[in-house]
């Protein structure tokens, strides 16, 4: 009976994971490109996505009852990425060797056949084979140019903007202070002007680099439409029909790496999720750093110091019930208390020069972490208390009988003995926190954050910044993006990633706990 229940649970969980894996892991695999010729003479080329029975059709008729979904790409030409084709309408199906798939920085994928590659208006390579070879050889150079432009934009120009902003705030500060600052102000304005000149220099560098981007590739899409793509819009060229398994595996790895380490493109439906991974992990870590001391101190107080009575019982019941409060309620509390009250207060006190633009008075990773910490506090308290209750009375008495004070006993005997339980509480808290989305949506998660909460600008950790989160990313990509069909595999992949991250964080904590247990039970200095 219980065995059955256990088996059922296991089957459910493995089934869920298998479903997510099946849907998510295939996303990066470059599928073959088929060309379908239809009865009405149309030609459609694309990757096979799925095959299903036409709803309401008679199953007894052999053939012609199925339809297929094809990713034809070329959204800018056809309007949609996907088409359904009745199998009965297909007269011919083949895999043209010269069909290629191009990942673009905008408008999604492109499927077509290369006509020629041009550079500065002159044709440098003609035909599919020549063109592909040439294109591939040009790509690294184009990527390098793009990277250089990006580096200037983010690095040098970013630095200039940052310093200009800081100086403007300085001026505002002086203005708030009032008189006697005019002299200083002039100096700062001169600095700003100087930075403006530097800005001009850097933009000139960018223009210079952009002049190098002269190569184009001309392709024909299925149906005979021609399209010319500037080389800098091309991320990757794949020729799936001629690529072997090893080649495809390499492409798979490359895309997986892009997914893990890159920034998102195209309203998050393509590219990577690195900022979201970063945000998720950082959020959970900050949450852990906050919740552990508070939870542990609260538990120690409740169990060791407070006089056990009705009041403590009520507090304990309240804490336990806190765990059952819907997470969005915590979110609302976070907004009302942390953001408006604490954050707003901080802004008025320390950042008056930036007002009315809020600094801490708006959602940010700190407030989101604090909200999650509040949410997971009961878990830590309860398991710490359980740990404390399990410590044999003899141990405490031994310490007290040696002349240790109550605090020394708590610190040197009870705390080490309770550490494994504290870790258990933390593990549960982390698992819960990593999966929460609702409270985050109102306390600082965004679809696309301009910068990570950790970077090279002083003070390096920017706890007031908004951040990205995998859970929210899933929601956003899966249900808020303009192109839900194209984004669906991404949803599964991201879900899988979120699961993996939760597992990794938890495993890390479990390993720490086991080490502590061993230390607690075994030799220690």
């Amino acid at each position: 009976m219980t065995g059955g229940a256990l088996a059922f649970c296991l089957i459910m969980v493995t089934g869920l994971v298998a479903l997510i894996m099946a849907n998510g892991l295939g996303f990066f695999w470059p599928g073959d490109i088929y060309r379908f010729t239809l009865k009405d003479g149309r030609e459609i080329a694309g990757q096979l996505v799925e095959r299903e029975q036409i709803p309401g059709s008679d199953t007894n008729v052999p053939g012609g009852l199925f339809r297929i979904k094809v990713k034809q790409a070329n959204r800018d030409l056809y309007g949609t990425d996907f088409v359904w084709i009745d199998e009965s309408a297909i007269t011919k199906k083949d895999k043209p060797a010269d069909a290629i798939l191009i990942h673009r920085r905008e408008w999604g994928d492109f499927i077509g056949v290369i006509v020629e590659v041009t550079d500065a208006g002159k044709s440098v390579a003609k035909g599919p084979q020549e063109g592909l070879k040439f294109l591939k050889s040009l790509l690294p150079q184009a990527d390098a140019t793009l990277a250089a432009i990006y580096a200037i934009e983010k690095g040098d120009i970013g630095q200039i903007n940052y310093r200009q902003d800081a100086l403007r705030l300085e001026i505002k500060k002086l203005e708030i202070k009032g008189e006697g600052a005019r002299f200083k102000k002039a100096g700062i304005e001169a600095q700003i002007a100087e930075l403006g000149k530097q800005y001009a220099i850097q933009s000139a560098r960018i223009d210079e680099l952009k002049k190098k981007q002269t190569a184009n590739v001309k392709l024909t899409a299925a149906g005979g439409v021609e399209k010319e793509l500037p080389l800098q819009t091309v991320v990757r060229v794949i020729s799936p029909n001629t690529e072997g398994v090893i080649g495809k595996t390499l492409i798979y790895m490359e895309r997986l790496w892009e997914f893990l380490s890159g920034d998102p493109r195209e309203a998050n439906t393509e590219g990577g999720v690195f900022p979201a991974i970063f945000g998720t992990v950082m959020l959970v870590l900050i949450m852990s750093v906050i919740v552990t001391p508070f939870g542990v101190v609260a538990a120690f107080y409740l169990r060791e110091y407070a006089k056990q009575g009705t009041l403590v019982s009520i507090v304990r019941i309240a804490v336990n019930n806190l765990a059952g409060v819907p997470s969005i309620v915590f979110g609302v509390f976070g907004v009302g208390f942390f953001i408006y009250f604490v954050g707003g207060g901080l802004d008025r006190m320390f950042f008056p020069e930036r007002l009315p633009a809020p600094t801490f008075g708006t959602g940010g990773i700190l407030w989101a972490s604090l909200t999650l910490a509040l949410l997971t506090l009961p878990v830590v308290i309860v398991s710490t208390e359980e740990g404390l209750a399990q410590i044999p009375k003899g141990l405490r008495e031994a310490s007290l009988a040696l002349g240790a004070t109550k605090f020394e006993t708590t610190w040197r005997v009870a705390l080490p003995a309770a550490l494994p339980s504290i870790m258990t509480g933390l593990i549960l808290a982390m698992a819960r926190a990593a999966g929460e989305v609702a409270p985050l949506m109102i306390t600082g998660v965004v679809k696309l954050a301009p910068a990570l909460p950790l970077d090279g600008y002083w003070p390096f950790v920017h706890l007031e910044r908004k951040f990205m989160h995998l859970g929210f990313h899933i929601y956003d990509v899966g249900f808020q993006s303009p192109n839900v069909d194209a984004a669906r595999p991404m949803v599964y992949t991201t879900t899988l990633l979120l699961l993996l991250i939760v597992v990794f964080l938890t495993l890390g904590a479990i390993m720490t706990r086991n080490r502590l247990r061993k230390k607690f039970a075994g030799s220690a200095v």
Partner: protein
Amino acid sequence: MSSNKPNMTPENASPQYIPGSAGGENEKKPGVRISSGNRADNSTPGSKILGEPIMEVRGLNLSYSGKQALKNINIAFLKNRITALIGPSGCGKSTLLRCLNRMNDLVDGVEITGETLFGGRNIYQPFIHVSELRKTVGMVFQKSNPFPKSIFENVAYGPRIHGVKNQSDLGGLVERSLKAAALWEEVRDRLHDSALGLSGGQQQRLCIARALAVEPEVLLMDEPCSALDPIATAKIEDLMGDLKDKYTIIIVTHNMQQAARVSDFTGFMLMGELVEFGVTTKLFQNPDDKRTIDYITGRFG
């Protein structure tokens, strides 16, 4: 507790009170009459002044949440002697013992009246530092309770708490304490192994070493051998004989042979009362009270 007690320092006490000799020549210092506790002192033929008490209990009553566990206890514990407390289960031996280092303070709803003197001072006075008292009056529990740390750390725990930081000082102290507890030879090669890997008897001796490491003056032992086999018990009994030179030992035991073997004085308790207290040989061979006779002849409890 301060170490300069008026008349209780070992230096001035030891030469005057040679074991076994009567302290009659010492008139100024308060001696104690060893007698059957609840009766008038002079009604007991065996009563005589035998030495200087290091701890003394006068008119002690204790109740746990209103339930009386000790009734008007009067007893004195002589310096550098072993005093045994015997009596049937639940008669209050542990309770009395735990009054002597204020371990009963930890129990909710406990109420204590009467005086418990250490070096002539009532240890229940508000200005007494309980942790200082417990450092001077050490305790070994019935169930050995080593910390889940290494052997070394177990012994070093107390000294560390009391401010010994120097590693070599600690090392010397640990070695001396382990030697005093007759454990050194067995554990010298594995000082940094977990204490929980020791046998029961070794663990108990480790607890004794741990208690000795803070250099107490009195050692309270609550049935220290009850979980041990005869060989381990013998070891600990031998140990007590050695420790007697430096420490005052008060031991609770269920084992009357043990009490007879190791102790100089024995108190017999029954239902919260101290029925009879006197020199061990006298109490076992020629007790005054009918109840004592019943108990030691096994007709009772």
